[in-house]
C-alpha cells in the first residue's frame, strides 16, 4: 500500500495508523517477554538445583562493569524518552541530539560488554572453550591483587566441598550468562540499528507533532531492552554476592 504524505494506504486516518503501530509494537514486546522468559525459567530452575555453583559463578562477574552498564542503560532510556518528547512537541532540532546521546550510551553499553566478555574469555570461563572455573586462581595475571585471588581460591574450595561437580554446574551458569546477556546484546544491536535509522530520518526533518510514531514505538522497544537488563543484572550479578 502506498503512502500519501504521512498516511499509508491501508489506513483511513492518521489516528488509526498510530493506534495500529503502537498496538503492534506492544504485542511484539509481549512476544519478546515470552522469548526471554524461556531462558529466565531455565535459569531459575538451574539456580534452584545448583545454588553453590551459581553463587560462585555470580561472584566471578565484574560488579563494577555491571553496575556501570546498568547506569548507562537507565540514562539511555531517559535520553530516548527525551527524543520522543522533543519529537512530540515539534522541537525538531533537538530530536537528533537526544537520539545521538542514546546511541552513544547504547554503544558504551556494548563496549563494556565486550570488555566483560574478553575478561571471561581470558579466565577460561567461556563454556565449551576449555572451561575451567579454577583457571584464574591457578594462573593469576600480573594485574590481579593477591587478596582477590586468595578470596576466590577459598570460595572455589568451599564450593567444591559442597558440590564436587562445581565445574560442570558452573559451566551451566556461564552458559546461561552468555546466553541471556548475549541475546540481550543482540537486541541492543538491533536497537542501535533502529535508532540510527531514526537519526537519519530526524536529520531530514521527517518527524513532526502529527507524525512521530516511529520514534515512540522504537522508544518502547528500547525501554523494553532496558527492562530486560534490569532483571538480568540482579539475577546474574547480585544474588549471593559477597561484597566484603
Amino acid at each position, binding site marked *: *500500500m502506498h503512502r500519501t504524505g504521512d498516511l499509508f494506504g491501508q489506513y483511513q486516518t492518521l489516528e488509526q495508523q498510530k493506534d495500529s503501530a503502537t*498496538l503492534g509494537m506492544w504485542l511484539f514486546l*509481549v512476544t519478546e517477554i*515470552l*522469548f*526471554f522468559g*524461556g531462558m529466565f525459567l531455565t535459569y531459575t530452575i538451574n539456580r534452584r538445583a545448583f545454588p553453590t555453583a551459581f553463587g560462585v559463578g555470580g561472584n566471578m562477574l565484574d560488579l563494577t562493569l555491571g553496575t556501570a552498564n546498568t547506569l548507562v542503560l537507565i540514562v539511555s532510556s531517559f535520553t530516548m524518552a527525551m527524543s520522543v518528547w522533543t519529537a512530540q512537541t515539534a522541537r525538531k532540532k533537538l530530536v537528533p541530539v537526544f537520539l545521538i546521546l542514546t546511541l552513544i550510551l547504547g554503544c558504551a553499553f556494548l563496549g563494556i560488554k565486550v570488555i566483560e566478555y574478553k575478561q571471561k574469555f581470558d579466565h577460561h570461563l567461556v563454556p565449551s572453550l576449555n572451561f575451567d572455573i579454577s583457571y584464574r586462581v591457578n594462573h593469576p595475571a600480573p594485574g590481579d591483587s593477591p587478596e582477590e585471588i586468595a578470596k576466590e581460591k577459598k570460595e572455589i574450595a568451599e564450593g567444591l566441598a559442597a558440590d564436587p561437580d562445581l565445574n*560442570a554446574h558452573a559451566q*551451566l551458569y556461564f552458559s546461561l550468562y552468555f546466553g541471556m546477556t548475549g541475546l540481550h546484546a543482540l537486541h541492543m544491536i538491533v536497537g542501535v540499528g533502529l535508532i540510527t535509522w531514526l537519526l537519519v530520518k530526524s536529520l531530514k526533518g521527517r518527524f513532526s507533532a502529527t507524525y512521530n510514531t516511529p520514534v515512540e514505538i522504537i522508544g518502547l522497544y528500547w525501554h523494553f531492552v532496558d527492562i530486560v537488563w534490569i532483571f538480568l543484572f540482579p539475577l546474574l550479578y547480585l544474588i549471593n554476592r559477597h561484597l566484603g
Partner: protein
Amino acid sequence: MSGTSSSPGNEYQLPREHYINATYGIRSWLLTTDHKRIALLYLAVVTFFFFLGGIFAAMIRIHLLTPEGALVSPETYNKLFTMHGVAMIFFFLIPSIPAILGNFLIPIMIGAKDVAFPRLNLMSWYIYVIGGCFVLYSFFTGGLDTGWTFYTPLSSIYSNSAVTPAVLGIFINGFSSILTGVNFVVTIHTMRAPGMTWFRLPLFVWSHYATSLIFILGTPVVAITLLLAGVERMFHLGFFNPAMGGDPILFQHLFWFYSHPAVYIMILPAMGVISEIIPTFARRPIFGYSFVAASSIGIAVIGFLVWAHHLFVTGQATYSALAFSFLSYVVAIPSAVKVFNWTATLYKGSISYDTPMLYALGFLGLFTIGGLTGLFLACLGLDINLHDTYFVIAHFHYIMVGGAIMGYLGGLHFWWPKITGRLYPEFLARTAAIILFIGFNLTFFPQFLLGYLGMPRRYHNYPPEFQVLNVLSSAGASILAIGYLLPMVYFVWSMRYGRVAGPNPWPSTGLEWKTASPPPTENFHETPVVDWEPYDFVNRPDLGLAVKPAPHLAPAHGDD
C-alpha cells in the same frame, strides 16, 4: 443475483480488473503487499510442503506393509516419520488456514483494504520460505531422525542426523507465525469498517483472533527452546544433559509448553471455517454465536494449561499429573460447545450437500471422534497403556487430518470462487470428498485398534499379528492419496475452465460475498458500512433466498 450452487452458468463475467491481473510480472508478485497475493504465495509453498510430507507418509505406510518392514532400514524409517511430522506440522498445518485463508479473507471480512502491516505480511512469507529452505537443506543432507519432538539428549547430543539446520529452520519459521499473529490481532482491533462491531464479526475472524493469541504467546517459547537445544548441540553445553547436571525433562516441558497450544493453532482456524460453512449450507444463523466466539478464546486460554499431559510417563509428581489431567478434560468443554452449536445450527435448517458442506459434516464426525479419544489419553491410568502407541497417532490424525485438513479443504472449496472467480467442478469435488472420507477412515481407524492392542509408535517393525490392520491402514492411505490428488487436479483445471462464479454463488452472508469475485486490489470500491447481524439469512433480500419474513435477528451481544 439469485444463485443456488448449480445455476450461475453464463450469467456472470469476470470483473475486468481484479487483484490477479491488476499488475503483471514476477516482481509484482514477489514484492507485493496485497494480502490476497501474499495468500496465494503461501498457497504455493504450503502445497509443496504438503506434497513432501505426503511422500514421507506414503513411504511409511508402504514400509509398514510387512512386520519386518518392507521398504527402508530402521535408521531411515526414523528419518521418515520425523520428516513427515516436521514438514506437516510446522510447514503445512500451522500456516495452512491462517496464512492462506486468513490472510486472504480477514481484511475483506472486516471491510478493510488490507491488513494493518502489509509489508510485515510479505516479510512473514519470506521468513517462512527461508525457514523452509533450512529445513529442506536438513532433509537432503542426512535427514532428521529425532522425531518432530526433538527430545533431548538424542537431538542435542547423540543423533548423527542434520539436527542443527532443521532446528534453525523451525526457529526462523516461528517468526513467520509470530508476525502473522501480531498482524492479525492489530488488524482485527483497528481496521474494522464502520458498524463492524466485535459481535458482528464472522466467527472465522474470532477463531483467527484466538489463534493469533496463541501465535503471540506460545511460539516464542518454542523458539527459545529450539535455540537452546541447537546451541547445546553446537557448543556441548549441558542444560539437557544429565552427565553435566542438566535435565532432559526440562526440554520436554519447554517444548510442550508451545507444542500443546500449537495443536490449537492447527484446529481453531479450521473450526472458524466450519462456523462459516454450516450456516451457509443450512441457510440458518449459527446457534449461539457468542458461545462459539467465547469458546474460541476459551480454547486458546485453557490450551496453555495442559502441556504436561504429554509428560505423564516421565515420572512427574502425582498431584501435578492430576492437575494436568483434570485441565485436559476441561479444555474439551469449549470444543464440545462448538460441536453442539454446529449441530444445533443444522437442526431445522434447509440443508444442501455441496462440497464444502460435505467437508464440514465430515469434520463434525471425525473431530468428535478425535476429540473424545483425546479424553481417553487424558485419563492417567489409560495413558500409561496408550502413551507412545498407535492410539495416540490415530487420535491426533483424526483431529489434524479428519479435522484440520477437512476444514482446510472445505474452506478452499468454499472460498475458491471468491479467490479465483471460478467454480470448481461440483460432481468431481463431491466424489473426491467422499473418497477422502472413506480413505481417511480406512487409514486411521485401524490405528486405534493397533494402539489399543499395544503396537508402539515410531517403531520400524511390529509383531506379525498386527499385519492385517497395518495392511488395511496402508490400503486406506492409497485411497486417501487419491482424495488429495483429485482436488489438486481439478482446482488447477478450474482456474482456466471453471464456470464463472459471480460475487455470491452459494449464497452466503459475509462481507466478502458483497464484493466482486475475484475482488479488486483494494477489496471494496467504497468502504462498506455494516448495519446487519452476522449469518442473517432472513433480512437479506439481496441473497435471493425464499425465506419467510421474520423479526430482525437479535444482536448477538446486547446493543453494541
